[in-house]
């Protein structure tokens, strides 16, 4: 197994290139990452992550969140980033840049995802 392949559970090698940019802890950080991205960046991640989302959650659902290893935690955070990026790609489209300006005023203060499980 190569070094890069070990970043995620087996079967999700296609998402390896996105780990550094999108496997982010914290809901507010993920929302900010979306706002800090460009369209090409978003589309590339969205296409790869959406295709693997059902398989990823099916795999992750087999374990308790509290006992995820590092690779599973990264995959979880990639899926959570997909939740944000999908809105940019599927809903906002060409309005995303303008929408980002409005969104920055909605401060995320606490989420269930940020609490330890």
């Amino acid at each position, binding site marked *: 197994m190569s070094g890069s392949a070990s970043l995620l559970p087996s079967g999700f090698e296609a998402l390896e290139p996105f780990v550094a940019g999108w496997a982010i802890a914290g*809901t507010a950080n*993920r*929302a900010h990452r979306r706002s800090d991205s460009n369209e090409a960046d978003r589309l590339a991640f969205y296409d790869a992550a*959406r295709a693997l*989302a*059902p398989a*990823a*959650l099916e795999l*992750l*659902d087999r374990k*308790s*969140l509290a006992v995820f290893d590092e690779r599973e935690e990264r995959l*979880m955070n990639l*899926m*959570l980033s*997909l*939740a*944000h990026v*999908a*809105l940019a790609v*599927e*809903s*906002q*489209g060409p*309005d995303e840049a303008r*929408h980002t*300006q*409005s*969104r920055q*005023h*909605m*401060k*995320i*203060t*606490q*989420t*269930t*995802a940020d*609490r330890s*499980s």
Partner: protein
Amino acid sequence: MNVQVGGIQSETGEMERALGTDPIPASPYFDPAYFELEREAVFRQGWLQIGHMAELREPGSFIVRPVEAAGASILIVHGKDGKLRAFHNVCTHRGTELVAEEEGKAARFTCRYHAWTFGLDGSLQSAPDFEQFYVDKADCALPSVHVDVCAGLIFINLAEGPVEGLCDWLGPLAERLESLPVARATTFTEYVYEIDANWKLAYDNFQENYHLRFIHSRSGAAAVGSDNPFGYPARYSFHDPHRTQTIWSNPNAAPTPVQAFAFGKGFQFAAADGFGANPHAKDYFALFPNFFLFGSPTQHFSHVVMPLSAERSRGVFRFYWIGDDDSASKRFAREYAVATGRDIHAEDRTVIEAGQRGLACGALKAIHFQANEVLCRHFFHQVDSRVQAYRETLGSPGATA
């Protein structure tokens, strides 16, 4: 459900007739003098939603919440005896704000200034060299505030003396609220905004759907359709001083791929919690004066609009959940639901500020509400009747334009 497109379908129609069709004066939406009257007539009277029992699960837990509109800081405590109590967050020695933390767990509260120490029941337990004072400890308890709970939601009432009970205040809505997920919620997700807008202008935006197709043309595509091009609610109801609407959604709207995936999971979890067929899932509650709750079990959010001044407000959105995230799919579904709500609400904030700038210039003496903005009209009448009644008690002129 039949929708009267371009018209309204309230339960009786009597309220619409009672409210009339006249223009509404513009100045209450920016005038500092009017806001000062609202502080007394609205926010220092009546029940205000301020928290949820999920924040006070254990005896000894407490929260401190500002109520800027009333110039107050409120300490709410879950006592060791299981009783919920609320106090003004002020030491009875010389008024120092007692608790600095926003939340926590304590056995007692000690003022940092001179170490006066209060029990969770608000009684003064000890004070250094108290023999030098000219007052009894029994007369130095924290000033209490009326507090009560409905559906897990904590309400306070800052009025002095006896007040109408919370259940009476909520009327038949109390039972409906108790049937919603919020009544069983154990946790929540929160996002907060501040806005340069009068609290009523901000609040109004969230109780009329006339703007949906223009402001939420992308994020709210499922809220309108050829049968209902403005996405008007299916029904309005009035429960003075509160009001509700039943949201209409386009049955033919095609969800986007990730939206279908995420909401599909959300519905599964809601069904597992017993909310698969909630009759109030599309009910949108507007509790006087500044609280909203949407009945949807997958997007079960509340929204409080707290005035900070005549032209500035703070909004707090909370998505209530039953149980912590206990699976990857549940965590994903919740993250998506919250991100979706935040996207939509961000769009509202921007246009509300534009409205405030326009009103505050004073060019308009009146604004206009159409038939499907009747909830805004009802809201204004509820506020203004209290302001005018309070103004009469002052015996001073200066009525609304």
